[in-house]
């Protein structure tokens, strides 16, 4: 092993490599994905109630960028910022990227990774809870989030789950809940 795995954190070399991510296209793609979800499952966004307009800062601590999510249904936006340029949000959720992804796809229980301090919550706890419960209900698979259907969805989900599972073991990430 050429690095010491630490609770799911990416090794420093990979952290640096991810720093050259093409920021605007990724933000655009994620915004489109969230808006598509709002069109297909509007009930999901009702669950957020007044927190639809909250500015959530999602901070994967092991990459160079942070995300600002405003989950306002079909007007939702996801933007990426260099950490040094990150805006203040009403609520901030921080953790290794592999843990944050695990919260989206249901691999991890939010409470469990919070109690073990793999996840840090700051700011409006009500808003974070509303977002977390909405994500729970969404029961999103990676392919569904990206808009794949039918057989391609199965293939993409199968490959993604296998890759993430392998990464979690390699990085000594917290034990999956599911």
């Amino acid at each position, binding site marked *: 092993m050429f690095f010491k795995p630490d609770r799911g954190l990416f090794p420093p070399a990979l952290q640096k490599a991810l720093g050259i991510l093409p920021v605007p296209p990724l933000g655009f793609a994620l915004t489109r994905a969230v808006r598509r979800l709002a069109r297909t499952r509007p009930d999901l966004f009702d669950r957020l109630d007044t927190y639809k307009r909250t500015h959530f800062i999602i901070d994967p601590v092991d990459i160079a960028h942070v995300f600002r999510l405003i989950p306002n249904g079909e007007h939702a936006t996801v933007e990426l910022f260099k950490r040094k340029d990150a805006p203040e949000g009403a609520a901030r959720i921080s953790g290794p990227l592999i843990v944050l992804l695990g919260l989206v796809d249901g691999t991890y229980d939010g409470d469990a990774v919070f*109690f073990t301090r793999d996840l840090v919550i700051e700011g409006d706890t009500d808003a974070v809870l509303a977002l977390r419960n909405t994500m729970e209900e969404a029961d999103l698979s990676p392919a569904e989030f990206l808009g794949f259907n039918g057989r391609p969805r199965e293939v993409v989900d199968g490959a993604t789950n296998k890759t993430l599972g392998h990464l979690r073991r390699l990085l000594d990430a917290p034990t999956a809940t599911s």
Partner: protein
Amino acid sequence: MLGQRNDNNPSLELVCPAGTPAALKAAAEAGAHSIYCGLRNETNARNFPGLNFSEKELNAGVRLAHKHGSHVLVAVNTFARAGDTHIWKRAVDAVVRSGADAIIAADIAVLDYAKEKHPDLRLHLSVQAAAATPESISFYQETFGVQRVVLPRVMSVEEIVKLNKEVTVETEVFVFGGLCVMTEGRCALSSYATGKSPNLTGVCSPPGDVSYDEDGSNLYARLGGFTIDGFGEGETAGYPTLCKGRFKAEGETSYLFEDPVSLNAASLLPRLQKAGVTAVKIEGRQRGKAYISQVVKAFRAAVDAMDAGGNAEEEVSAMLSAMIEGGRETTGAYKKIWR
């Protein structure tokens, strides 16, 4: 199976939580005999942001649960406000329309409305009613036709044995999850700190009043501005409920009321069954579907193992050790010898 336990059918009924339709599906698929949930408003004692069911979701959830052979019990278990009872009445009507199998209520106004308007509706007395004596339980049974009582988490097994000999209603007890060490329905600690009541608006230690602040490697959990606990580097954190806070008194810092531990009474399932308990309940409507799925599977395995003459306690503990608050667990008051 709901309410059918008898000498020929001694199986414990496993009652599992669902805070969202996804969690309900997870519980049903994991083998829950019954699933309890609430509507998305102040009529239930887990009125947290983003949690619970719309009426439409409840209707669909009941259909799905029934398809899996699971019963649905709906909590309308806060206390109705004088002059503003229509929300609670509407909730009771919605439960009936959904085809759910029972309502879990605590307030005598809600129980009375349910009995008068919907005489065929099965009534369970919520733990929020804090009924733990034969006299109080008989009152609810005789007055409202309550068929089951959820017992407060402050009773020992011996007390449950004695109580079950003196009442004819079914009893249900908590066996896993968050541990409320106070007599539910009568605790005002959270109201004192935040001005919001678990009993009236369904929020104990409401998240909007919670903050987690980092100071170096220390993490401080606060409720309503009061520092409830602090955690050093590597120390497992907990939710800042006042009853599980660490306070300084007479020069000593300690968990004055209760350690931040989770209830795990898996080892006591055989004794609870022998004590005449009908149903065992898992706490955690605020927990995610992954948690629900794993806990329900573990307890269903334990209940099935008991039915087959075995004991699945070790398996349950191994499966669930990573999922408990504070990383530690207790059998709570069930084994307490002091009063």
